[in-house]
């Protein structure tokens, strides 16, 4: 009997310990898999970085020709070619992502404020599910609408013949452009931002807002100065999430941005510059994903993947760091 009393709690804790160990092992395995992926992508991409040095991130030459040379050098029994200058792709990615995130951030903030505080009740009840639906619509659907509707619209109506003629020897302006990409990407990531922003704004304690109102501050100023500031962590979280989506978007952007690895040149003049096609880093991986059997090509694609992975990790780190000082004041929204 004594033994039973002593064994009973022991057995139960042993059960717990076993469960904790096996769950912990699973978590550890997933972490190890992620780490392995990071290491593997870096390792596979290294030859491309090593051969090009910092020139990898620079410009020079046509990316299309470089990729062609890299690919064919893997097939022949010659020395593999690694020369790759990714600046047009990087510039295209920065341009499209930054453009879409900036536009989407400003408009999503206003829409979220409107949705949470100033819209009529019936409109809010209708829009809440719509925002969530749009946030979960697959990107290829947006890409399809973009390439079949927006791109021809831009190509046929926005771009004039003289504009087309002015850049003709270098590139063709078909409508698949930075502008189309930014527009579609904005529409795609705005619902994600609005959903996260609105959640954060809704979590602002009513008392804080009422305190401001009691001081005679008008509703708009109250919500802008108290509500939006309190929800800053949510603003950061939403922006980071949306930027990560934008950065990693491959298919949709390869459809609407033209798929030409060309660096849009601001010196070409303001509207024309937006009509020029480009290609993003992620889209390049998709376009050449079937050429992995050529070793130098594989290393080059993995180098691109490493840049994307690193950017995504940095983004997540920045979001985390930006939230830290706010956490101290107990601002959790």
């Amino acid at each position, binding site marked *: 009997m004594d033994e039973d009393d002593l064994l009973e709690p022991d057995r139960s804790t042993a059960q717990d310990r076993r469960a904790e160990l096996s769950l912990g092992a699973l*978590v550890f395995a997933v972490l190890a898999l992620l780490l392995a992926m990071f290491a593997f992508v870096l390792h596979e991409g290294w030859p491309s970085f090593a051969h090009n040095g910092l020139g990898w991130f620079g410009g020079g030459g046509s990316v299309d020709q470089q990729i062609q040379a890299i690919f064919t050098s893997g097939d022949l029994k010659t020395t593999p070619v690694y020369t790759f200058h990714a600046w047009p792709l990087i510039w295209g990615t920065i341009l499209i992502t930054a453009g879409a995130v900036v536009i989407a951030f400003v408009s999503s903030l206003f829409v979220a404020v409107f949705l949470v505080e100033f819209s009529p009740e019936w409109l809010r009840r209708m829009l809440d599910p719509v925002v969530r639906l749009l946030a979960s619509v697959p990107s290829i659907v947006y890409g399809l609408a973009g390439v079949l509707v927006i791109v021809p619209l831009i190509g046929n109506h926005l771009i004039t013949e003289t504009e087309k003629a002015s850049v003709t020897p270098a590139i063709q302006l078909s409508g698949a452009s930075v502008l189309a990409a930014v527009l579609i990407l904005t529409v795609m990531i705005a619902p994600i931002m609005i959903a996260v922003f609105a959640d954060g704004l809704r979590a602002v304690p009513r008392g804080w807002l009422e305190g401001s109102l009691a001081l005679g501050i008008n509703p708009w100023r109250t919500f802008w100065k108290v509500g939006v500031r309190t929800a800053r962590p949510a603003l950061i979280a939403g922006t980071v999430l949306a930027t990560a989506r934008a950065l990693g978007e491959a298919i949709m952007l390869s459809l609407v941005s033209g798929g030409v690895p060309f660096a849009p040149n601001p010196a070409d003049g303001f509207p024309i510059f937006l009509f020029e096609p480009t290609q993003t880093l992620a889209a390049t991986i998709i376009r050449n994903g079937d050429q992995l059997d050529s070793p130098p090509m594989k290393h080059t694609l993995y180098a691109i993947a490493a840049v994307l992975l690193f950017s995504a990790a940095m983004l997540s780190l920045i979001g985390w760091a930006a939230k830290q000082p706010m956490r101290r004041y107990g601002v959790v929204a």
Partner: protein
Amino acid sequence: MSTAITASARRHERPTASWRLTDRLGLGLAWLLGLLFCAIAGAIVVFFLIEGVRYLRPALLVTNPVAGVSQGETGGFLDPLLGTVIIGAMAMAIAIPVGVAIAVWLSEFGRPTLMARVAESAIEMMAGEPAVVLALFGLTLFELPALGFLSQTSHGVVLGQSFFAAAALLSLVGLPLVVASTREGLQAIPAHVREASYALGKTKIATTRRVLLPAARPSVITGSMLGLGRVIGDTAIVLLLLGGTLTFQPANSTPVLGVLRGTGDTLTGYMYYNSPAGDGNSHSKAYAAAFVLMLIVLALNLGVDVVVRRSRRAVRWS
């Protein structure tokens, strides 16, 4: 409740005329952008509704894609539709158990603390990882001879493209959503519920299994549906890892395993094939597939709504 401010403002007939110009401009801009968003959202929904109703024929749902010269001969998208279902089921079969286990560990155990912090940020980071990178990694991973039994082998070279490969990588896409939602649900359960169970002599794991997980079931379901939505909407992994062959190409004649080891396609892959960038380039088929995909996503969203609403009505801890 959140209309309190505007409602009170209206009650007291406070005219915005006394506001500063910037405040009035801000409010005006909020209304403008809010209504613009409504217009865009409405346009998107109406556009796909019209195109979908215009091009979707029942025959498309029950016939397979075939090579053909004209629109009428290229068949429908039965196999891609089934592919979407298979891929979604397989990916979530991995993501849900693993995701729930990770969430339980994070919320109920979480020792050593350092590992918990690392795991937390890693899962968060995973949600932001580009799917293309996952796809590229998966392609190399499943080309390993040791994993050849999961895909096809021809002339000693492992193809690395199969339902198994795509589902394994897609489960990583759905995983963060399952973890986040489940964890939130577990943390919303007050501590005294756990303590009551411990006081009855239950172990921690028994408490988790019998008390906490049933209570957090709505969160698990919500997370799973959101994850499933992401999984079936992904195109990059499907294109690279599923092979993008329009119909099922079984690896061998084994009934189920043969298909799963073989290549196929999903609705998203079919849409890409029928977009101007693909070989099919048939707008009507792409719109029809997009409509079906949107209906699936809409159903998942409604499912989440129902689950959330029902859980709100359920027992309150107090």
